[in-house]
C-alpha cells in the first residue's frame, strides 16, 4: 500500500481512531495477513471506508464473528478487513408482524435471546458459536432446522449492502410478502463477501415451539439410513429436523419433533411407529440431544471436513460411495453426519495422508458431479487447499456467476480469489 500512514489517517477520520488497528497474525485468512482492521459503526462509515478502498485499490474482506473466514480458497490479495463488531444494533423487532431488522454484526445468540422474550425465534441454527447475521447470510450457514424452515434464502426479507466503491443499496423491505424489484437479498446469500458488504438485514420470525422431543433409531447400513429417513420425509408428521450420525461405532438417525404440548405425544408416537421397523427406537434425553448436534469444529486437529450436497433420496448410495472411496484410499472410517432429510452430508476424515485426502476429494467430486450433486471443502489445511479447490467446477452457470461478479465488483476488490472459479 502506498502512503500507508495517509490511508490509515483517512480511515481514522471515517471510523474514529479507536476503531482502526494494525492487523496481527490472528487476522490472517488462509495464510494471508492484511495490513489493517477497521470497525465501522454505521452504514455511512462502511460506505466511507469502501470509497477509500476503491480509490486506493485495496482488497477488502468483510468479517463478522470470524467463524467461517476459513471457508474458501486463499485470497489472492488482502489489504483490509472490515469488521462488523460495532454494527451490533437490533434496529427493530415487531413481534406482531413477526419480523426484525438488525445490523450485520449482531450475534445470532444475542438475537435469539432477545427475540425469545416474545416467544419467537429466527429459525436458523448453524453450529458455529459467535456467528453474526452478516456472516450467516454471506456463508449461507444453516443447521438441522433447515429441514422444516428452510435456509437463509427462505427467511431473509430485506438487506442493505455496501458495494466495493461505497455505493449503498437496499432491496426487499420489512414485510414478508414483497415482489418489488429484484431479490438482492437472495443474491447476496452465500456470496461470501465477494459482491459487497452486508450492512443490515431483515428477517421473518417464527413462533418458539412450546414442546420438543427427539426420537432416535439405530440403523445398521447406508440403505437402512436412507429408508428410515425417507419414511419420515414422506410421512405427514411434519418433523423439524432429521439428522444422521454415521460413524464406525455409532449409527444413529435422530428426528427432532416440535409441537404444542397437546400434539407432542401423537407426533412422537407416529414417528416412533414409522422408525421402529428399522431398529431400536428411543427418545433422547436432553443431554444426549446436545451431544448429537451436527458436525462442530473437528474433534481431531487435522480433520478435514467435506460438505456434500446430493438428492435426499440417494442418501444410501452417497454413504456407500463415501465409505467405498475412503476404503480405496486407505482412510479410516470417516465420521459422517448430516441433515439427512435435505441431502446435506458432512464427512470428517483424517488429513494425515494428504495424497490420500486429495484422491478422496477428487473421487467424491467425480461421483457427485455425475449425479448433479456438489462437494465443498468445508474445513481443510492450507496445503490441501493449494492442491484442491474448495469448490467444484460449477455447472454451466459459471459464466453467469462471473458476469454478476464483474458487474458488482469490477475492480475485483471484494475477497478476490476465494470463490467459485477463482473469482
Amino acid at each position, binding site marked *: 500500500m502506498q502512503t500507508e500512514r495517509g490511508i490509515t489517517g483517512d480511515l481514522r477520520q471515517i471510523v474514529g481512531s479507536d476503531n482502526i488497528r494494525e492487523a496481527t497474525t490472528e487476522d490472517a485468512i488462509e495464510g494471508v495477513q492484511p495490513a489493517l482492521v477497521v470497525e465501522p459503526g454505521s452504514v455511512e462509515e462502511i460506505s466511507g471506508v469502501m470509497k477509500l478502498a476503491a480509490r486506493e485499490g485495496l482488497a477488502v474482506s468483510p468479517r463478522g464473528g470470524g467463524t467461517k473466514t476459513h471457508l474458501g480458497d486463499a485470497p489472492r490479495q488482502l489489504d483490509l478487513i472490515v469488521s462488523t463488531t460495532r454494527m451490533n444494533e437490533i434496529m427493530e423487532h*415487531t413481534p*406482531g408482524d413477526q419480523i426484525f431488522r438488525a445490523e450485520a454484526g449482531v450475534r445470532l445468540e444475542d438475537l435469539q435471546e432477545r427475540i425469545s422474550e416474545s416467544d*419467537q425465534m429466527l429459525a436458523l441454527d448453524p453450529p458455529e458459536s459467535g456467528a453474526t447475521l452478516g456472516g450467516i447470510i454471506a456463508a449461507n450457514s444453516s443447521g438441522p432446522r433447515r429441514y422444516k424452515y428452510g*435456509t437463509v*434464502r427462505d427467511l431473509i426479507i430485506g438487506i442493505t*449492502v455496501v458495494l466495493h466503491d461505497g*455505493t*449503498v*443499496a*437496499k432491496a426487499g*423491505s*420489512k*414485510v*414478508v*410478502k*414483497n*415482489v*418489488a*424489484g*429484484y*431479490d*438482492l437479498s*437472495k*443474491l447476496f446469500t*452465500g*456470496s461470501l463477501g465477494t*459482491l459487497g458488504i452486508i450492512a443490515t438485514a431483515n428477517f421473518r420470525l*417464527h*413462533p*418458539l415451539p412450546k414442546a420438543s422431543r427427539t426420537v432416535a433409531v439405530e440403523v445398521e447400513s447406508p440403505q437402512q439410513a436412507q429408508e428410515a429417513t425417507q419414511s419420515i420425509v*414422506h*410421512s*405427514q408428521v*411434519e418433523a423439524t429436523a432429521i439428522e444422521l450420525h454415521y460413524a464406525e461405532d455409532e449409527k444413529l438417525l435422530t428426528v427432532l419433533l416440535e*409441537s*404444542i404440548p*397437546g*400434539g407432542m*405425544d*401423537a*407426533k412422537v408416537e*407416529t414417528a416412533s411407529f414409522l422408525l421402529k421397523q428399522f431398529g431400536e427406537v428411543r427418545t433422547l434425553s436432553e443431554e444426549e440431544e446436545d451431544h448429537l448436534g451436527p458436525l462442530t469444529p473437528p474433534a481431531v486437529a487435522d480433520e478435514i471436513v467435506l*460438505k456434500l450436497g*446430493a*438428492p435426499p*433420496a440417494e442418501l444410501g448410495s452417497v454413504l456407500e460411495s463415501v465409505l467405498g472411496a475412503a476404503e480405496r484410499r486407505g482412510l479410516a472410517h470417516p465420521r459422517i453426519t448430516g441433515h439427512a432429510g435435505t*441431502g446435506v452430508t458432512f464427512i470428517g476424515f483424517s488429513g494425515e495422508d494428504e495424497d490420500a485426502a486429495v484422491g478422496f476429494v477428487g473421487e467424491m467430486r467425480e461421483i*457427485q458431479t455425475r449425479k*448433479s450433486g*456438489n462437494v*465443498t471443502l468445508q474445513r481443510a489445511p492450507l496445503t490441501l487447499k493449494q492442491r484442491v479447490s474448495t469448490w*467444484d467446477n*460449477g455447472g454451466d*452457470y*459459471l*459464466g*453467469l456467476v462471473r458476469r*454478476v461478479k464483474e458487474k*458488482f465488483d469490477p475492480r475485483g476488490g471484494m475477497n478476490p480469489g476465494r*470463490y467459485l472459479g477463482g473469482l
Partner: protein
Amino acid sequence: MERSRLITAMEGILGTEGVIHEHEQLRTYECDGLMNYRVIPDLVVLPETGEHVQRIVKLCYDEGIPFVARGSGTGLSGGALPVKSGVLIVLTRMRKILEVDIPNQRIVVEPGVINIWVSQEVADEGYYYAPDPASQIVSSIGGNLAENSGGVHCLKYGFTTNHVMGAEVVLPDGSVTHIGGGLAPDAPGYDLLGAFVGSEGTLGIATKITLRLVRVPESVQTLLAAFEDPEGAGGVVSGIIGEGIIPAAIEMMDRLTIEAVEAAVHPGLPDAGAVLVIELDGPEAEVEEQFGRVLEICEENEATEIRVAEDDAERALFWKARKAAFGAMGRISNDYYVQDGVIPRTELPAVLKRISELSEDYGLRVANVFHAGDGNLHPLVLYNNSTEGEAEKAEKLAGDIVFTCLEHGGSLTGEHGIGEDKKKYMPKMFTDDDMNVMQLLRCAFDPHQLANPGKIFPTPRLCGERPGPFHMHPLQKAGIVEQF
C-alpha cells in the same frame, strides 16, 4: 431486420403454425390481464420446445430485437405487455410435465404447464404443489416464476421462490444455462435462481422448471367467521399470531366483497362487515388443539357467526367464495381496478381506515379482499368506465392506496409485480442507488437489454459499452436515456 424476413426466419424455426403475424390476430395479444396498457407486438411466436425458445432468442439477439415472454396472459401488472417493434414469445404450447420424482419430492415441468395441473399430477401420491394464486386454474408455472406468485396459503408455505429448486434458462443472448441445483441442495455460487424468480421476465426465459412438492397434510380444518366490522376480524388475526399459531391461511373480505360474491356464486355468506376464512393444517392432534383455540379467539373478538366446515364440500364452498371474489366484482360494478399492496400486519387497522377515507374523498367504492395473515391487500376500486373521468380517478385512488402502504412501512406490491403498471412508483420505494444496483444484476444477465425492456424500472438505463460497431440505442437517439 425487415419484417417479412423475420417472419420467414421464425417460420423456419417453428413452422407456419408457430408464427402469428396477421394484424387482427396480433391485436388479441396486445395486453395481458391488465387492459389499461396495450401495445401491438410486431410478431407473436409459439415455441413448443426449449430448443425453439433458444433459437428464437438467439435470432432476436443477433438482430437486436427486443422480446417479451408470456404465459397464459393473466398477469395483473402488465408484465407481459408487448414491447413496440418487438417479438412476443408465448409459452402456452410448452405444456408437458417432464418428470415426476416422488422420492426426492420434485417435479420438472415446462413453463406453459398450468399451476393446478402440477398438483393434479401428483395427487394420487399424496402430494401437491403449494403456491396457489387465485388464477391457478389458468396461470402458468412460467408466469408464476416471473412474478413470484403467492396465493392464500403462502403464510405457512411460502411463495413460488420457496418452491422452485432449479431451472433451465435461456439467457437473452440465446445461450442456455442451468441455475439452482435442482435436486441437490447448496450448489456453490450465487443464488442466481433466487434472483431470477420474481424478475418479471427481464433476465431470461425459463424452459424447464424443477418444483418442490409438499406432502398433503394429515388434517385440515377450515372455518368461516363473520364480524360486525374489520376491527373485530383484525383482532382475531393478531390474536392468532400472538398465540404462536401459524395458520395455513387467513383471508379477509369486507362487506362490499361479500355482497359481490353472494351475487356471483351464492355461497350463502352471512351479512357482515367482514368475514374471515381461516384454515389450519398439519398433524391431526396439533390441528385439533390449535383449531379449538382459534375458535375461542374468534369468540373473544365477538364473531357474530362461526361456521366450521363439516366436510371437503363445505370447505370447497368457503374457498370458492374467496377465490371468486375478483371476478364477482363484475356483478356489482361495471369496471374495477385491482390494486395490490402490502403492509405490516400491525398496520392493518390504520390502513383500512385510511382506505375508507380515500374512498369517501374520491367518491368511489372500494371493496377489500386480503391475505390478512401477511398483510397483502387487494383493494378493488369500483368505477364506471363510461362515466367521464372516472377511470382516471380510479387509477389515482389506487395509486394513493399504494402510497399509503408505503407510508406505513409496506411495499409497492405483494404478489402482482411491478411490470408496466407500477414502475412509476418505484422511486417512491427505492433510491436511485438502489435501482442502479438492481440494474447491475440486469446487465449481468442481459447486457443488450432485450428481455422485456421497459418493465420494472421507470427510466431506461443502458448497460455500458457494447462490443462491435457502435449502435445508438433508439432511446439514446431520442435523448431519453442515460448511459449507465
